[in-house]
């Protein structure tokens, strides 16, 4: 099975202040959607860590990124927008991990618009590598199914990508963590387990 190691991470929440979105051409920042601006802000923090335009992109979000973001960064290796309802975070990471059979690195990013009162807006991103690059790095295990009932839903709650924010925050400080998210099927009491482990 192809391994995935975290090479870089970044995230944005409302606490971080206005998203600068400097990757977007100035004349297009105002017209870009909010999720595009926060995604651009987060990707801007990663440009020093990895040549984003040379990586394949895998995005988990409820809307495609604004054309201006795609055009300004020109991801030559293709981009993939994944949707799987409540399981979107797990499926997006799985799709990203699969990309590592063809590429040494992959960008996986998430953007969520605020859906009061259920969730707040955020953007997060990880650069994954198929080789571990440091002894204190983190290994993203392939999301796998876990027989457990997810936390009770409040009913009518839109699918949340919050697990992606928690993963990026943990990766940012090099902390192992486990996220458990619903499988997406109301009929099955199983979850997807996503784990960041110490690489060594």
């Amino acid at each position, binding site marked *: 099975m192809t391994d995935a190691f975290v090479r870089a991470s970044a995230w944005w929440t409302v606490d971080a202040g206005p998203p600068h979105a400097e990757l977007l051409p100035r004349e297009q920042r105002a017209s870009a959607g909010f999720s595009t601006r926060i995604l651009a802000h987060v990707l801007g923090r990663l440009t020093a860590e990895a040549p984003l335009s040379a990586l394949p992109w895998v995005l988990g979000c409820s809307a495609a990124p604004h054309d201006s973001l795609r055009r300004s960064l020109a991801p030559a290796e293709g*981009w993939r927008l994944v949707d799987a309802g409540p399981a979107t975070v797990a499926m997006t990471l*799985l799709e990203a991990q699969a990309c590592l059979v063809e590429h040494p690195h992959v960008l996986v990013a998430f953007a969520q618009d605020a859906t009061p009162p259920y969730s707040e807006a955020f953007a997060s991103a990880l650069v994954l590598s198929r080789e571990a690059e440091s002894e204190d790095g983190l290994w993203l295990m392939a999301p796998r199914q876990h027989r457990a009932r997810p936390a009770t839903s409040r009913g009518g709650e839109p699918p949340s990508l919050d697990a992606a924010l928690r993963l990026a925050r943990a990766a940012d400080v090099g902390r192992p963590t486990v996220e458990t998210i619903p499988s997406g099927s109301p009929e099955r009491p199983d979850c997807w387990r996503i784990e960041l482990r110490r690489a060594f």
Partner: protein
Amino acid sequence: MAGLPLTAWAIEHPWGDDTDAVLDRLHREPALPPAPAPARSTSALLERIAPRGVEACERWGPSRVAIVLGSVAPRVDEPLLRLSTTLEAIRERIRSAGPAYHVAATGAGGAKAIASAGRLLRAGLADAVLAGGIDDGMGALVLIEKHGDSFVQLEASAETSGSTDADHLDEAAMERALTRALAAVGDPALGYVQLHAPAGSGLVAVERRVVQSVLGATPSCMLRDPSRPEGAAAGAVGVVLAAASLLRGFAPEPEPRELEHDRVLVHAFSPGGHHVALVLGARP
């Protein structure tokens, strides 16, 4: 790279569900008839391939069988249409408990889903994947497995992106996709290249020019109706028709021509800048 067998496929097309008949009719009567009702066509398509999906779940285990469907691309002002009903219907029908998701790309979603299927298998993240795309009145699903009996295999895929939109084809992005897919195969000899631009489109000449620059004088075919844009199914229908052509041993042209090489490259692109190249070949 070892090929991945396409162990089953099914098509829903305005010309019917028999791939030979569809190929024949496409050349005689390129303008398509009215499409059947969406709900009927989706369930009919699923019913034709479901028994093979059930067998795959029994062979590999339900959690090792994935489903990847193409979907149309969302816009910022129009959030992604969640096709979870279709996805869940397929999961329930074949009794899969593995990964299941959509990859969104209007006009190339089906091809991207099949490329994703290949990567999931090669990464060891699944042992079988049911992949494709379903639109109103048109769709195609293929079952790709780690091992299995089949005459046709997925040999390689490559995805790139560029400035392609509805009126402009980014030749460099297309060239990269073709070159990478062929490099993964190692042998550039092709029976034909299946173009994506529909007959009559100004992009046909551009697509042909790129094929010639990468492959020289390789035959190319067009199978899409310009009056019937495909959304999610685009690319997946082309893959199934290419697989059927490999089985027949003839290129899908008005005057059928025997294939000189048992390998076909299917190219798909979308206004969102996506380019996908899929190489199918006869299994040795």
